[in-house]
């Protein structure tokens, strides 16, 4: 392997969002969801792979006797059951799966379940399900798709009979966990036993598991080691309308797998009425529609375009609070900053409103992916009580990213305020930059948002744009993630999945050829693919890491630079959201604290200093939380980096990658780390043009500034950067100074001066460096 990668170790750009836990926008999920499973060496794999844990233990899997004595399922015939039979089994005194007596809570929930819209069509569902291998299922939000359909399938598949599970995918980690918990309650079993979930870095299943909720990314990872998904008898792709990268890839894979495995059933579930596209794609599969239980929503537009949508939104919320009947408000904004800022403003405004009028109280709750879970929970709190008995009712106002558009259902919303924007990931293959940009939403999104107002009673939706703009300026459907992403990681996964023909791979929406070519070339520079586009040994190994290929390559090559321990830490740190906090009111203090950790060579080493200090504190048994608070660091993100590090370490050990460090007192300690960084990030280099302006190299070729957060003490003409930030100005962020010699030495393919085109000054500079290197080598040889 050393040979293979020696000449072109490499790297590419990282996406703008780095977090494995950050589910901020729906667009990030796929990459984020990569698991850290690993081993490819099949037999060995099973022992290490949490999700393959019951692969070979059929004996105690769905243990002998299979069903508890007297189970109501005893006379069920697989794939021939009826809704009536199932209902009877559900009504029994004992749990048909565990034999335990049913709890009181079980019957309470059962009653509620029978009121869900899907329940009325259980028989109809079973008829279609039994008749057809693939089924498309459409139901409005809240109709019971996610919670009920998998249970209906379990009662018909009887997974304990053939040791094959039922899987239901979710685009979001949070959804997978919470829905699994809910369904465990509904079935009256313990989470992790009959019903489990599997998300990145957490596998809560056991040998008893018959129904498994999991992220789409996790199922994709499993497919890398089990090409036909042989452990499942039925796969349910939920929230397919979200069209995440992983769901799209899964659909294409499953389209093939269902042909090869006639026994495998597939259900594609979607909340929106674009199901025809799914039907057509899946060989004209039958469609089942469950009407929702929603109420009409009146839609309002502004007569003129709104100059400032945030201000307009704030006013609208206050107007609703002052003038409309009881009911909670849901306002869609684009991101954390905007949301927090608006929350603050609205709260202040409401205080004023209350002083001046007889308005009721209002709780304002933010909602976005990076919000700590306990704070997210606040959105489910009941609205505040009136100030005094008989006073004007209190109200809840939730200000959310598009996370509340489909995946999170909040009851009680009667008013929706929709400025028409969301943050969407978009990939520019020329710049090789993935960024989150605020863009206008699609018509489909706007309808989905409006629908949120009709869950409890008839509602109203206030759109902060004109009806004409809605009709003429909004696109019909949001572009699927696969058209908006860097595909380097996807191509690596596809190769590992055994997909030979990328050109004719049957995706629902194939990406642009340019995007595909860029991905292939990036992987080629990283030596993950050879010149023919075939997976190399390095590429195969890199695909085992739930990381961007460049990061994976950097990690894999780090032992050669005697710093794999440090690079492991850095990789983990780069995989979580920003660890430095900078609260609006305390920026100066925060910057002073950051200076304590400053390393003159740049941000990466500064982050490493923080991590070492953090581990030191924990090691001494001190209060890490308090320490983080004092130093304006995110305890949560540092802890999660710690967790990610542990997972990555396991993968490294599994694959025999050495964990080594240079002696801390060695003067090459930091140099080695910087060189190892270059081995991964050589495609993200900027060279100084003048005092403040740098220019990124090769195709990217853009003038950039160092992000104001950058710590770079020494004067460096050449830097590597972790992200390219596109805002009003172009920045590079998380930067470390390097020596140009390293580029020529570590990435000769990418920095091949013979074939260099454009950027003459850079070529000149590199040529001078090359000459110097040659002279030095000659001198050494001559001596």
């Amino acid at each position, binding site marked *: 392997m050393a040979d293979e990668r020696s000449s072109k170790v490499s790297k590419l750009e990282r996406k703008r969002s780095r977090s494995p836990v950050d589910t901020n926008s729906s667009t990030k999920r796929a990459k984020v969801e990569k698991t850290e499973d690993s081993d490819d060496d099949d037999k060995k794999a099973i022992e290490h792979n949490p999700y393959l844990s019951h692969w070979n233990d059929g004996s105690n899997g769905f243990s002998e006797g299979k069903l508890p004595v007297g189970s109501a399922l005893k006379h069920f015939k697989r794939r021939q059951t009826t809704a009536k039979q199932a209902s009877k089994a559900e009504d029994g005194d004992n749990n048909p799966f565990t034999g335990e007596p049913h709890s009181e809570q079980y019957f309470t929930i059962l009653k509620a379940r029978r009121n869900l819209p899907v329940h009325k069509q259980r028989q109809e569902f079973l008829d279609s399900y039994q008749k057809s291998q693939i089924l498309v299922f459409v139901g409005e939000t809240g109709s019971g798709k996610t919670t009920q359909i998998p249970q209906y399938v379990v009662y018909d598949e009887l997974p304990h009979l053939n040791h094959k599970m039922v899987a239901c995918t979710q685009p979001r980690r949070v959804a997978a966990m919470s829905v699994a918990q809910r369904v465990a309650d509904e079935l009256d079993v313990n989470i992790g036993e009959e019903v489990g979930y599997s998300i990145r870095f957490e596998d809560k299943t056991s040998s008893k598991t018959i129904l498994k909720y999991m992220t789409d990314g996790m199922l994709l990872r499993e497919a890398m080691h089990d090409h036909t998904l042989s452990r499942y008898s039925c796969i349910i792709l939920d929230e397919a309308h979200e069209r995440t990268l992983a769901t799209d890839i899964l659909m294409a894979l499953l389209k093939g797998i269902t042909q090869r495995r006639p026994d495998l059933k597939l259900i594609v579930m979607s909340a929106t009425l674009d199901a025809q596209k799914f039907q057509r794609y899946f060989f004209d599969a039958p469609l089942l529609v469950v009407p929702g239980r929603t109420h009409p929503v009146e839609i309002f537009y502004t007569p003129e375009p709104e*100059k*400032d949508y945030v201000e307009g939104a704030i006013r609208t919320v206050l107007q609703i609070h002052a003038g409309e009947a009881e009911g909670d408000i849901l306002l869609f904004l684009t991101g*954390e900053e905007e949301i927090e800022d608006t929350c603050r403003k609205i709260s202040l405004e409401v205080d004023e409103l209350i002083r001046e009028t007889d308005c009721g109280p209002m709780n304002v709750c933010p909602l976005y992916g990076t919000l700590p879970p306990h704070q997210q929970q606040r959105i489910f709190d009941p609205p505040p009580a009136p100030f005094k008995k008989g006073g004007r009712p209190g109200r809840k106002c939730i200000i959310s990213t598009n996370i509340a558009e489909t995946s999170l259902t909040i009851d009680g919303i009667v008013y929706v305020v929709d400025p028409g924007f969301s943050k969407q990931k978009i990939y520019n293959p020329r710049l090789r930059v993935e960024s989150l940009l605020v863009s206008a939403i699609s018509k489909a999104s706007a309808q989905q948002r409006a629908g949120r107002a009709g869950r409890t009673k008839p509602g109203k939706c206030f759109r902060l744009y004109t009806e004409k703009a809605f009709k003429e300026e909004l696109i019909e459907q949001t572009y699927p993630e696969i058209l908006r992403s860097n595909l380097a990681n996807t191509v690596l996964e596809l190769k590992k999945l055994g997909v030979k023909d990328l050109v004719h791979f049957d995706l629902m929406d194939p990406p642009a050829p340019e995007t595909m070519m860029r991905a292939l070339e990036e992987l080629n520079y990283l030596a993950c693919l050879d010149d023919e586009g075939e997976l190399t040994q390095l590429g195969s190994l890199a695909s085992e890491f739930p990381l961007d290929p460049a990061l994976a390559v950097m990690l894999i090559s780090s032992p050669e630079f005697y710093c794999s321990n440090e690079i492991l830490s850095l990789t983990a740190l780069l995989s979580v959201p920003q660890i430095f906090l900078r609260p609006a009111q305390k920026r100066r203090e925060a910057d002073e604290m950051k200076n304590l950790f400053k390393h003159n060579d740049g941000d990466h080493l500064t982050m490493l200093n923080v991590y070492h200090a953090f581990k030191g504190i924990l090691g001494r048994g001190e209060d890490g939380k308090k320490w983080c608070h004092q130093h304006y660091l995110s305890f949560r993100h540092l802890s999660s980096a710690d967790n990610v590090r542990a997972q990555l370490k396991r993968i490294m050990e599994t694959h025999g990658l050495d964990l080594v460090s240079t002696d801390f007192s060695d003067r090459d300690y930091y140099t080695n780390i910087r060189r190892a960084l270059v081995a991964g990030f050589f495609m993200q280099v900027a060279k100084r043009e003048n005092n403040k302006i740098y220019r990124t190299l090769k195709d990217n070729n853009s003038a950039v500034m160092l992000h104001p957060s950058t710590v770079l003490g020494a004067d460096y003409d050449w830097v590597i950067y972790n992200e390219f930030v596109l805002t*009003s100005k172009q920045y590079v962020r998380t930067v470390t100074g390097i020596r140009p010699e390293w580029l020529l030495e570590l990435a000769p393919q990418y920095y091949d001066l013979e074939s260099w085109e454009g950027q003459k000054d850079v070529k000149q500079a590199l040529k001078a460096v090359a000459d110097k290197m040659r002279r030095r080598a000659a001198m050494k040889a001559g001596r």
Partner: protein
Amino acid sequence: MASEEWSDDAESEEVPLQHKRPFGSGLKRKRVVFVPASSGNLNSTEESKPSESSGPSKSVSDIYLSIVMPKGAEETCTDEANAPAPDICDICKLPVNAASDAADAGKPSSRPHQASIAHQVCIAHSHPPSALDRSRMGLAVLEAQGWDPDARNGLGALNQGISFPIKAKPKNNTVGIGVEVPKDVATRKKEKPQMLNAKKVRKMASDDKRRQEKLRHQFYGNPEVEKYLGLS
């Protein structure tokens, strides 16, 4: 990523919260006006009522299809309905006579159908080869798997994929949808003097037009070009 507005409003953020001008004093001053939608309220209950009596699966899907289908179906029909004329060209699917009339007002009827723009647009291989750098590794791999860069096809089982990556511009303001913003201050300054001088503008337009005409004559008079376009 929590710091996009770093440079821009660092100053304004320094003002302590309690000293900031209360924002809402404007609420009464400036109401947001709304008008009801002329059509398209969400009325899902009514739409779905007929199917609530859980009929056989067919009927439910039919209802659904009837909601979704008609528009698409009609569109494809009208295309064909437009072409009932007897002589239909195999290549462009347009009536041979009609096309030649409509194609080029400049030189009526003398032009053969094959020379009409509508026909030429439909001819395969009449476009120039792609400008892609042929030495690219990514291109070589896609070509090896059967993708032809010059055929203007996308990827996918039916080559149906998009041809070019989706583009988006960064948005760094809170201007609402539909507001027309001048591109940026610099270009606006440049445009202003031109707008003042209507004569100049008219002259530029006519210059443009003449240049276009000249180009057209060059192409359509030129036997080389016609050969390339497959007209001879």
